[in-house]
């Protein structure tokens, strides 16, 4: 509320509406999976970057599809199919709002970020990349924003170019700019690194890429849940996200693409639902987005993803972000105070991820020991082997945050790491 509005409200005798306070204890009650013990200890879930837990609203939405609105979509006139179709398209509108696309037709449902990137690489990439063209990525990408480009480069003769990361895990704009040439056709970058938590300077990267005549795909798998996105303000051409990292079900995600591009692109897969008419001589494709949605999709998953977005909207995305930012700062402090712990990835702009190594123990041993204390973290290369190589390590231990985490969770991690010291120190 602006000061003027507040004044007006006060003058009218009404209490100004307070911004919704973020009550983490109430939020926690929405996530039934938190209410359990593992190895006899209360669960401390610090692996939301791998997949986030699901609120009851999402579970209910999925159950509702299978127990009531169980029908295929876009295919029948019967009521159940109408309800399923309405739920599915309502989810499309929820995603549109969430990423602030201009039109719901620019939202394609996918299995997740991986499929979204593969769709662009195979559909747009095969149609547009030529021998000698360049695809520019960065050194902190997840394998799913590397391998699809390697595949299409192999098919077309284009080259993969990589902008390096700094010792702190940042991507510098100069390093991207220095690799933009007149042969760069597309720049594919993460919004947030899953291995390091780095937030990339997307807006200037996108502007520089467009100035160089290249398109930009943003891997929003980690960005969507922790930073949010406005694709119109960013100006990116494609944006891929995964519902399951956004507190929705696994197996459902979305790809935003600018309409003009989507209309030009050939279909990704052929089948039912993506056609206008089929004869053995010729098939006319459906309009976007249906052109890219061949076959029966993950209807319940998509509807669950829509419910997850509505849950986040009701909660207040910004309040959740502030809560996570405070926790990250606290977690950084706690880890740095433990002797022999080294945090990997110290970008100034960083969210939700604490990747670390310990002198005394290998990440895999850390994972087992903290698991025995009820603390779930991930260990390994996090599908970002080039990042591990960059820091000359095989693996890290990674604690990652969700909106339900608390300072007590961080304290539990700290105590568990002290156990690691005792055992291996």
């Amino acid at each position, binding site marked *: 509320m602006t000061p003027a509005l507040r004044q007006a409200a006060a003058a009218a005798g009404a209490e100004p509406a307070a911004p919704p306070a973020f009550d983490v204890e109430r939020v926690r009650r929405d996530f039934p999976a938190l209410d359990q013990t593992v190895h006899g200890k209360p669960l401390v879930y610090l692996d939301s970057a791998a997949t986030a837990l699901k609120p009851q609203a999402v579970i209910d939405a999925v159950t509702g599809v299978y127990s009531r609105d169980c029908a295929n979509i876009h295919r029948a006139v019967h009521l159940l199919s109408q309800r399923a179709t309405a739920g599915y398209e309502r989810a499309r509108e929820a995603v549109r709002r969430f990423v602030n696309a201009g039109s719901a037709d620019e939202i394609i449902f996918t299995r997740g970020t991986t499929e979204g990137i593969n769709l662009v690489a195979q559909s747009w990439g095969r149609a547009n990349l030529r021998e000698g063209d360049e695809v520019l990525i960065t050194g902190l990408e997840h394998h799913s924003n590397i391998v699809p480009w390697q595949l299409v480069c192999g098919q077309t003769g284009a080259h993969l170019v990589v902008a390096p990361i700094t010792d702190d895990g940042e991507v510098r704009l100069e390093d991207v700019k220095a690799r933009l040439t007149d042969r760069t056709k597309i720049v594919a970058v993460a919004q947030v690194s899953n291995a390091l938590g780095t937030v990339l300077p997307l807006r200037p990267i996108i502007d520089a890429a467009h100035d160089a005549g290249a398109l930009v795909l943003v891997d929003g798998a980690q960005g969507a849940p922790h930073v949010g996105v406005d694709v119109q303000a960013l100006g990116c051409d494609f944006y891929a996200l995964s519902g399951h990292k956004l507190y929705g079900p696994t197996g459902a995600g979305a790809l935003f693409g600018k309409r003009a591009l989507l209309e030009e692109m050939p279909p990704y897969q052929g089948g039912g639902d993506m056609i206008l008419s089929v004869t053995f001589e010729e098939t006319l494709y459906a309009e976007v987005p249906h052109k890219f949605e061949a076959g029966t999709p993950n209807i319940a998953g998509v509807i669950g993803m829509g419910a997850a977005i509505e849950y986040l909207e009701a909660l207040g995305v910004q309040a959740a972000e502030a809560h996570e930012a405070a926790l990250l700062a606290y977690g950084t402090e706690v880890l740095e105070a433990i002797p022999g712990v080294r945090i990997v990835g110290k970008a100034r702009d960083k969210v939700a991820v604490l990747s670390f190594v310990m002198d005394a123990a290998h990440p*895999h041993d850390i994972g087992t020991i903290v698991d025995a204390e009820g603390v779930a973290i991930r260990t390994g290369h996090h599908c970002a082997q080039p990042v591990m190589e960059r820091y000359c390590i095989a*693996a890290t231990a990674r604690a990652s945050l969700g909106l339900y985490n608390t300072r007590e969770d961080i304290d539990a991690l700290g105590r568990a790491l002290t156990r690691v010291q005792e055992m291996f120190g």
Partner: protein
Amino acid sequence: MDLRELYQEVILDHGKNPRNFRFPEPSNREGQGYNPLCGDRITLRLQLDGDVITDVGFQGSGCAISQAAASTMTEAIKGRTVADAELLFGQFHTLVTDDGGPEPNMDTLGKLAAFAGVGEFPMRVKCATLAWHTLHQALEGDDASAPVKTE
């Protein structure tokens, strides 16, 4: 869940100070092992005279379980015949996976019996068996350029 069952003294000791952490000179067999899940890597070399393993050593990096398994394995097989080593592998495998093989003989296993607790930790079984799979590959004389993977 008792972590001391997993991290027995023998394992902590060998994990921290692996024995035979060097390549034998000369050597005539090599195996490479890689666990893509956690990044554990080992290279194992041995000298085979007839069917006796006269010397063996390894290099690599990984978690305490994988390093200790490689270290204790080299101690256990040095001076043994190939047939003995494969027999030990079978016993060790049953010990850590409970795969229904013949009841492992703790006397035969000796120090290797310290890995009995691994079976309680399914995610760690591959760490314990990586070195042994690598040994098997080296003895079979498979193409050493294709590392064995524990998956």
